[in-house]
């Protein structure tokens, strides 16, 4: 089936080579970081995680977002998602692959990564995160591949794959819950030490993942002649809206607890993120921007006229995705380190090296996604013919 990815238009190949180019440049940057050490990034003693871990966390959400298609289609037999569900599963594969790359890029001693398997440590949440992420990759690869293969041969998918499909649903929730546990179980970091972190992660994931999928599906409609169907788009819009509402409701709860209780530890990071702390305000503008466009986008999505019109629907999905990307892919992780356990504010600015490597990981994810989608769309075209 893979040969289908080797036949394409000039535009398809231009896109593939563009991605390979970005990956190549990023690869060179990584070579430099590998030789110099993580000092090549903007991270420091006080802000010891940066863009890599923040992007990792966000991508876990995008991966988990795929379940918002799998669940209605396979559990509730929601037929309108027939064409688009495979896109969700393949997006999860690309996103988990990116997660693994971001984690690897963040390791000081990447050659020792197998130590996690050689010395399994169940009390470490990172150990469990490794298990759930690899498990989710495996489940989606199995389900996506077998189902696509069945379509290609024009037969119904085999029954043995069903348990894997059903298992992938709670598993999607688990990947983002365990990822939240990486943060919310640490005693010295007030901003992360909140029981609502996992629900917040899930809510933002179920908005951001499907929002990205809507945008990609709209692009596919134009460039690949693949129409997921208006009904699927509208239902996704509804899912995104409710998830976004839950996300901002949860964020509001964080604000209430911090500013009504007036407990300094609870307020400090929010102060830093939205107002600046002790004169440090690098993240204030992005965070306010994120909150503003996120709320506007959610409000827009509440109006059926806006959601029904493709251009405004795309705009609101794009705004919401950007908002959640800044909130979780930047502010959530960096904010947790401010103030430090010694009550000091150290700010973090990513270096060109770090951004280059991150872009290369995104390009690799996009390449995986492009190839998988090429297969899915070729099979769909064959079926239609």
């Amino acid at each position, binding site marked *: 089936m893979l040969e289908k990815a080797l036949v394409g238009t000039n535009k398809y190949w231009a896109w593939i080579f563009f991605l390979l180019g970005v990956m190549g440049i990023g690869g060179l940057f990584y070579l430099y970081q590998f030789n*110099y050490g993580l000092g090549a990034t903007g991270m*420091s*003693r006080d802000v010891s995680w940066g863009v890599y871990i923040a992007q990792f966390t966000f991508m876990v959400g995008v991966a988990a977002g795929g379940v918002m298609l799998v669940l209605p289609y396979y559990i509730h037999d929601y037929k309108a998602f027939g064409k688009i569900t495979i896109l969700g599963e393949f997006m999860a594969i690309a996103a988990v692959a990116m997660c693994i790359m971001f984690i690897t890029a963040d390791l*000081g*001693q990447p050659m020792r990564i197998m*130590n996690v398997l050689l010395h399994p440590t169940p009390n*470490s*949440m990172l150990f469990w995160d490794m298990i759930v992420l690899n498990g989710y990759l495996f489940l989606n690869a199995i389900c996506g591949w077998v189902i696509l293969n069945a379509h290609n041969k024009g037969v119904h998918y085999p029954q043995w794959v069903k348990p894997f499909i059903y298992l992938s649903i709670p598993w999607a929730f688990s990947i983002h819950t365990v990822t939240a546990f990486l943060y919310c179980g*640490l005693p010295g970091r007030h901003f992360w030490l909140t029981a609502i972190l996992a629900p917040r992660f899930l809510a933002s994931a179920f908005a951001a993942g499907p929002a990205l999928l809507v945008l990609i599906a709209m692009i596919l409609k134009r460039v690949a002649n693949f129409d997921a169907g208006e009904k699927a788009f509208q239902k996704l819009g509804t899912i995104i809206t409710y998830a976004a509402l839950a996300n901002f409701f949860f964020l509001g709860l964080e604000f209430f607890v911090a500013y009504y209780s007036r407990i300094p530890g609870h307020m400090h990071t929010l102060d830093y993120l939205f107002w600046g702390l002790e004169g440090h305000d690098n993240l204030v503008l992005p965070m306010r921007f994120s909150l503003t466009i996120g709320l506007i986008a959610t409000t827009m999505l509440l109006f059926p006229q806006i959601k029904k019109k493709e251009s405004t629907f795309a705009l609101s999905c794009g705004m919401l995705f950007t908002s959640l990307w800044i909130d979780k892919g930047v502010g959530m992780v960096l904010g947790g380190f401010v103030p430090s356990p*010694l009550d000091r504010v150290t700010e973090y600015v990513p270096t060109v090296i770090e951004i280059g490597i991150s872009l290369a990981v995104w390009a690799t994810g996009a390449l995986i996604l492009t190839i998988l989608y090429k297969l899915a769309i070729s099979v769909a075209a064959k079926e239609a013919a």
Partner: protein
Amino acid sequence: MDVKRRKFLKIAGLSAVAGLSVPSAFTNLLQGGEALASTAGRGAAEGSQQPAAGGHGGHGEEPTGVQYGMVIDIKKFAEHRGLAEQCVKACHTEHNVPDYGNPKDEIKWIWVDDYAHGFPESSQYKRNAALKDLPVLLTCNHCANPPCVRACPTQATFKNEVGVVVMDFHRCIGCRFCMAACPYGARSFNWRNPREQYANGNYKFYKNGINPNYPTRMRGVVEKCNFCPERLAVGKLPACVEAAGETKAMVFGNINDPNSEIAKVLNANFTIQRNPAAGTKPSVFYII
């Protein structure tokens, strides 16, 4: 290799029990290794922890077994200005801690800060002016219930038989989960190669040369205070405690042995710990 090194660290810890403070070591031996047996059990259960029962100040059940700890008398450091800095220097020279001269790459095992930053959880409201410029020595607390050990995905950091939270530099993958987990900012990361040399062979970052009794590290691993197992093994006190010398500004020993000097100091003085509400049961105590 790994196994051997861990064994060495454990043996070094054990011999430290015998090497340190003769009377208390003697009692330990008389107890027929009972204390050692119980600590071996603790070692096996590393990462497990008892919930802090009773009160929200992190007081709960008293941990048993050998637990090395330290009392830092800030008043004495205030009387002997400059002494705290000497302790820091002694430690960093002993352990080949590189000096990069910038805060971004900084590595420190023990350092001097002020009361407000050492104890940010305690109230700074209407504090006496004298408190403000006290030299407060900060280092790893070798918690009885260490969050860093719980977080580490490879057991590269673990509690040894004498209650010291140690690092296996050769197993660490550099994920820095322990740094996020530590509520005391005690851990540092090798952001770059500390062994870098000039063309003439001189080290760039080991300003005082290299102490051959302790290994240098490689880039990409976490490091921190380890209560000097290499010194305890030969019957010496930790480098910082030795540097504080006769002032008794620092007292080191097994806090769970009622006959140890440190237990007596703890019994005779009002001491505080950093961020006790985190429930980590720090083994470093302060007399302010």
